[in-house]
């Protein structure tokens, strides 16, 4: 695209380091890609350290250690220590599985600033059914207590779906009991596994209104005390699309386990060639790469976005969503009521009232091979 305007990019303030796609849980709402690649291709410790150094030099300041389950990386403490020394605010985004009191202390010593723990439900029955793992709830509960006992700021993240939305009141109570500082009640975003499972996850509008009302009433009674609750509704029920990633290539940089650099954690699905940190510096990637420049500014925008007076507010919405739903990543996000494809959203909402496909739990494909090797050893 030679007619593309070059838009000067500010620093990638937010760096998301997806250390591994491996995960002990099997949540069907997972936004990881369904094709996860091979664990052998994961970046080494040294490669990650270099990424952090380069990103920090450009002005990146928030660093999320994510995955999969980042605790599966044995070098996590080394990565945290280096990042903290560089001046990053370090966030661990974890399922809590694999955490121990001792590791929480070791991470604190390494300089970790904050721990975010995901919960799948407000009781063991619902939580462990969604997570696809026994005793997950009990482990999360104990570790959340320990995180607060050891003086960390703690965020709890509940991915809300049809499977747990009726538990909202209990979720609010649980969050208070665990003394969370912030609580994200985030309706599932339909990417990766969650897109395949959408019919089983997308709540009805009535369910959402009820849930939001429950949260608002609870907030009114808090009088500034207890956790701060953040309720995120799914964009499917909005009239305007979300300002995805605060605009493509403006703020967020994701590095996937194999070193692919992406403007958001889902972008790999798009028909674009993304650069890899093994081949290029973060600065080259952020400032020069074609894929990162592809949707910067507004010269790429189709109608109705191009002539819309809200285009600087939502940047035309989410490129991945446009691609998944229409097959064309350049189109207006179908969530927008002005989009010619908006009917696809209504179809999805209708389809979610009567799922016909089976729910698919997330699996780690390479685990199958691991199991074979284990058996051979015996």
């Amino acid at each position: 695209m030679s007619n593309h305007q070059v838009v000067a990019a500010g620093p990638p303030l937010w760096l998301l380091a997806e250390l591994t796609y491996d995960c002990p849980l099997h949540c069907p709402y997972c936004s990881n890609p369904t094709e996860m690649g091979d664990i052998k291709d994961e970046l080494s410790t040294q490669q990650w350290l270099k990424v952090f150094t380069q990103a920090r030099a450009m002005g990146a300041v928030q660093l999320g250690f994510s995955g999969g389950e980042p605790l599966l990386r044995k070098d996590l403490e080394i990565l945290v220590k280096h990042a903290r020394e560089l001046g990053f605010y370090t966030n661990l985004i974890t399922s809590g599985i694999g955490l121990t009191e001792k590791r929480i202390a070791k991470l604190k010593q390494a300089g970790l600033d904050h721990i975010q723990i995901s919960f799948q439900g407000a009781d063991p029955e619902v939580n462990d059914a969604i997570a696809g793992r026994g005793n997950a709830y009990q482990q999360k509960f104990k570790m959340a207590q320990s995180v607060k006992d050891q003086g960390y700021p703690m965020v709890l993240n509940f991915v809300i779906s049809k499977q747990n939305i009726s538990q909202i009141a209990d979720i609010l109570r649980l969050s208070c009991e665990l003394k969370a500082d912030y609580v994200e009640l985030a309706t599932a975003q339909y990417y990766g596994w969650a897109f395949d499972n959408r019919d089983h996850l997308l709540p009805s509008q009535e369910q959402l209104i009820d849930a939001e009302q429950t949260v608002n009433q609870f907030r009114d009674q808090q009088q500034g005390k207890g956790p701060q609750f953040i309720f995120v509704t799914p964009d499917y029920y909005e009239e305007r699309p979300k300002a995805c990633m605060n605009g493509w290539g403006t703020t967020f940089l994701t590095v996937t386990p194999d070193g692919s650099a992406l403007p958001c954690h889902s972008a790999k699905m798009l028909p674009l060639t993304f650069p890899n940190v093994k081949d290029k510096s973060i600065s080259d990637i952020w400032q020069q790469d074609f894929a990162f420049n592809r949707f910067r500014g507004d010269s790429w925008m189709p109608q109705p976005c191009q002539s819309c007076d809200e285009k600087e507010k939502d940047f035309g919405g989410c490129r991945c969503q446009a691609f998944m739903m229409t097959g064309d990543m350049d189109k207006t996000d179908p969530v927008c009521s002005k989009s010619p494809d908006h009917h696809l959203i209504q179809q999805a909402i209708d389809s979610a009232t009567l799922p016909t496909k089976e729910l698919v739990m997330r699996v780690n494909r390479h685990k199958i091979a691991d199991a074979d090797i284990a058996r051979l050893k015996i």
Partner: protein
Amino acid sequence: MITPAMIPAINPMFRLQWEQAQDCFVLLFPEGMVKLNGGAGEIMQLIDGNKNVEQIVAALMVKFSDAGDLSVDVNEFLTTASEKKWIFHE
């Protein structure tokens, strides 16, 4: 109400840091950042859980000797900072 004897401390939920790329002091917290303007940064730097408000004002008036009485500005900022839970005070 902010009083001269009050000893403010930064809420441990937040980390104060000079950010070269932003050319200002920032407050960092889980997955977020607040940029502080020049005056706010100067005041926040002095909050250490030991100095009281009077001492903070005095320190600022030494540093900015031609700025006149800064107690009103400091009180205003501390009120805002306290509402936003950036600081605590006894």
